[in-house]
């Protein structure tokens, strides 16, 4: 046996003749199908089938906890009830507020941090590690942790605000106030996920070749102009990718907010996902919640598709 055989050649030699004969008759396309078939079967079983089944359930009044009642087809009734329910629209508004402001702050602060970290200074690696620590924690832990920080009587957050503004720390409640609670969840999520945006931006910044800036220097372009005409356009595809990831993640945000506010006070921070969980697994309105899930899915899928098209346009420029 030649010692410089490739692994493929060794496998081919080791294959029994009977099997080799059978496979030998297959075309490349058939062999490719054999290789991808397990993945396709798995995808169909755990993604496509549940999706089709959920669509089917969304037209029924099925309840997973009341099997004895059976289920009936109710047509579009579930969809009609959801789309005409002011509480659902309130959930969507709360979700939109959360989505917009978390992405806004995370992009702003994440980019600024990436811009600072991208410079050469002592302790660069150490500070990068420190900054990315929050995103390594579990959302449930972060939620609990911020609940204590926001506690009006003993919470550090209120004392910091008090230190800078002079207001009594016990005079305001971040998670108990209708006015402040939506911002409380935005702050906690921003704290946790800004490092993620920073890392993506950092990758973008480091991918810009140095000679472009050198050429701009030779052309006597100011730093400000370099920033707007080189840095931002070249980082933009990365930034848009970060926005896409965070947008999809935050649209289905659940754990962090449940730990912080349980959707309260009242329904002030009740995101669509929290309401969906209550409908599906506390009220057990399986048909209704399936319709709600399909509406959310179509919304995210539609928005993400439009966004990806815009992203591709930016990348092709």
């Amino acid at each position, binding site marked *: 046996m030649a010692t410089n055989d490739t692994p493929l050649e060794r496998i081919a030699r080791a294959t029994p003749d009977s099997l080799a004969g059978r496979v030998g008759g297959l075309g490349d396309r058939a062999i490719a199908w054999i290789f991808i078939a397990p993945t396709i079967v798995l995808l169909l079983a755990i993604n496509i089938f549940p999706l089709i089944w959920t669509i089917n359930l969304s037209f029924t009044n099925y309840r997973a906890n009341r099997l004895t009642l059976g289920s009936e087809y109710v047509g579009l009734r579930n969809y009609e009830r959801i789309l005409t329910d002011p509480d659902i629209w309130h959930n969507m508004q709360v979700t939109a507020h959360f989505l917009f402001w978390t992405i806004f702050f995370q992009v702003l602060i994440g980019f600024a941090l990436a811009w600072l970290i991208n410079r050469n200074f002592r302790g660069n690696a150490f500070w990068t590690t420190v900054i990315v620590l929050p995103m390594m924690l579990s959302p449930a832990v972060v939620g609990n942790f911020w609940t204590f920080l926001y506690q009006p*009587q003993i919470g550090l957050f209120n004392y910091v605000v008090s230190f800078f503004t002079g207001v009594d720390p016990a005079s305001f409640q971040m998670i108990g106030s209708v006015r402040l609670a939506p911002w409380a969840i935005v702050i906690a999520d921003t704290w946790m996920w800004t490092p993620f945006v920073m890392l993506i931006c950092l990758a973008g910044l480091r991918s810009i070749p140095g000679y472009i800036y050198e050429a701009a220097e030779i052309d006597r372009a100011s730093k400000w102009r370099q920033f707007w005409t080189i840095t931002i356009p070249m980082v933009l595809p990365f930034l848009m990718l970060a926005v896409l990831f965070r947008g999809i993640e935050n649209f289905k945000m659940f754990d962090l907010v449940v730990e912080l506010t349980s959707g309260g006070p*009242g329904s002030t921070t009740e995101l669509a996902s929290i309401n969906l969980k209550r409908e599906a697994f*506390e009220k057990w309105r399986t048909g209704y919640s399936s319709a709600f899930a399909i509406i959310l899915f179509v919304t995210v899928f539609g928005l993400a598709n439009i966004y990806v098209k815009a992203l591709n346009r930016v990348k092709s420029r």
Partner: protein
Amino acid sequence: MRTLKRCLLASAVVLSGANYAAAEDITLCWAAWDPANALVELSKDFTAATGIGMKFEFVPWPNFADRMLNELNSGGKLCDLMIGDSQWIGGGAENGHYVKLNDFFDKEGISMDDFAPATVYAYSTWPKGTPNYYALPAMGDANAWFYRKDWFSRPELQAEFKAKYGRDLAAPTTQLELKDIAEFFQGRQIDGKTVYGANIFTERGSEGITMGVLGTLFAWGAKFENTPGTYDMQGAVNSAEAVEALEFYKELYKCCTAPGYTDSYMQESLDAFKSGQVAMAMNWFAFFPGLYKDEQVGGDRIGFFVNPKQNVEGSMLGGQGISVVSYSDKKDAALAYIKWFAQPDVQKKWWSLGGYSCHLAVLKDPSFVESQPFAADFLKAMDSVQDFWQEPAYAELLLAMQKRLHDYVVADVGTAQEALDLLIKDWTEVFEDEGKL
């Protein structure tokens, strides 16, 4: 070789013994709280008497309903015995989760007449009030109050209170008196520390705010239906009394609670009281033995009182019955536990360990009232308890109420009248879906 054979034989004997023991073990599911620890202690007697081992699955209250109802709905075999919340009885019976116990009671001579009627009605029967039993009353409970007796008895505070309100500073007898006292303590400096009036239930996620508000609604005489069993809620759920009571609860929350208690339930109530933040707090009787024993705030420093009346006596029912899960493979052993638990002597020990027996042999015992400082209040509360809906759709009804109440009381959305009107709309929808309207 002989040694090896002996070892194998011995292992086989040990393993077969272990399998036998495992087969005889039964699992009891309940919430993780003080009485559960008492039940573990009590159940050792059952194992000693029958040889049946006991395993326990205790889940903290905020997740108890979610976890256990999922278990029942999925036909799980984890629990052989379930001490489920009183509101689950309708679903437990109609969905086939619980074993009907009538024949077993008849066979074993267990009479429901031996238990307090309110507890039999609330924890055992479905449809309500009919002689169809799905549980044995296991743990009587109601929402009540406790207060800092040592603060109340301070002469300077006594004098100041009397000058302001014209009566002694003592445990309140009406809801309005309770608010006066809470206002009196709110923001006061005691031993160099700012204290607050009261801790009340405001929790949003599970059942907290509903349990707190219902105690107030019942004290005002509010009801769920004009005629029981008709689901005729208009004018009952949103009656003038109910609106007034709900407004009162919100005023109490706004005027007299400590900052930050916007999502407060059992544990937060205990924390607020034990840390010396509040003069009074509401909670379930189940916690009172532990509070009384507390080194910091228990003993002479604590007093107890039943939920004060306003228009009528009324308390929110807590507590649970013990049921046999129909999916269990060890129903006989589970029934043996119920038979054992129903004995008067066991019930007496249950009370002595910190559980709340519903057996009349315990409650009617002349020494019962003096046996604990809260025993008399417990008896009084159990005379006027009312429960939430116990319908199979109770979770939907409860979540709707949680939302409407939290929106109004904590989030300042709308008026009390609007909150209750919307609640009727939600509940009507649920009962229509159920085919009951």
